[in-house]
């Protein structure tokens, strides 16, 4: 099939991945997921509240045609992240996982050493591993070599909405790795998503920019179109930039007025 996002054995028609955190209600989250057109949503794994053990389950509000991507958010070591991946698998979600290991609490910046180590282990164990990482092209090559199924550089710190601070990083990644490059974290507005896609990102992952928008459902729709527009723009191939003006109209055959 042409123009699909292929991650390991999984195929997606949409190039927008949506997070499920920070929504005011599960119903609103569901509406936003539907409006976004996404086929893949991230979830986290946390302790059950034993004072209210059977509160409504997030999973009940995720449309049936949308795949679940458990993340290892909150982990600070490879060991913790591997355990969370195993737990997610035990919970019956399968072997797709977003690997996220943080090395700096304030920046929520990925720990490259622990991330590479966990990637190696999880790939060997048969997981399909989507790796959240720093925008470092050398690390990207190591992750690719380790068998990562998608490599996901941050655009800017998680939840910051600062956009894609180094869009060249996307191009550098694309030149150096064989698997999809997905800009994850920092996208604040549709133009940020479009910019990432125009520059060759295979997909973007967005949570806060949709969940915390004034109208999350409308923003989800906007992000859907931004991703599609950016992708089309990338595939169409943009015109080269030039230093000086070049007329769009013919410069010959001008009328002689007033002479």
């Amino acid at each position, binding site marked *: 099939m042409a123009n699909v996002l292929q991650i390991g054995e999984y195929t997606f028609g949409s190039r927008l991945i949506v997070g499920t955190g920070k929504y005011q209600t599960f119903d609103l989250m569901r509406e936003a997921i539907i409006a976004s057109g996404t086929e893949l949503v991230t979830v986290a794994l946390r*302790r059950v509240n034993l004072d209210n053990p059977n509160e409504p*389950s997030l999973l009940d509000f995720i449309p049936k045609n949308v795949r679940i991507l458990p993340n290892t958010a909150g982990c600070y070591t490879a060991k913790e992240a591997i355990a969370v991946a195993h737990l997610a698998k035990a919970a019956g979600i399968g072997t797709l996982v977003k690997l996220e290991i943080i090395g700096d609490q304030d920046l929520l910046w990925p720990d490259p050493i622990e991330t590479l180590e966990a990637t190696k282990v999880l790939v060997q164990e048969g997981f399909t591993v989507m790796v959240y990482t720093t925008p470092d092209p050398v690390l990207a090559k190591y992750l690719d070599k380790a068998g990562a199924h998608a490599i996901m550089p941050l655009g800017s710190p998680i939840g910051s909405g600062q956009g894609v601070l180094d869009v060249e990083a996307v191009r550098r990644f694309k030149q150096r790795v064989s698997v999809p490059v997905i800009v994850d974290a920092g996208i604040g507005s549709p133009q940020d998503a479009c910019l990432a896609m125009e520059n060759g990102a295979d997909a973007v992952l967005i949570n806060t920019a949709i969940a915390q928008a004034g109208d999350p459902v409308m923003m989800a729709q906007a992000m859907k179109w931004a991703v599609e527009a950016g992708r089309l723009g990338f595939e169409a191939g943009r015109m080269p930039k030039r230093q000086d003006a070049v007329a769009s109209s013919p410069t010959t055959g001008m009328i002689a007025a007033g002479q």
Partner: protein
Amino acid sequence: MRLIINGEPRDLQNVRTVKEMLDVLGVDHQTVAVMVNGEIIGRTDFDHGQVQENDTVEIVRFVGGG
């Protein structure tokens, strides 16, 4: 029997298996994953997985996240 469940000590009566523990706690088996002393107990093993005095148990489920 005293278990440390999700970081809190709890006294549960007449509990030998993971299934019995979840039932006593009122937790739906279908939505959770369980780890006992660091070992994951698969959902199909809830009936057989044993819990013993002073075991450390984690009961987790999916929540919203990015």
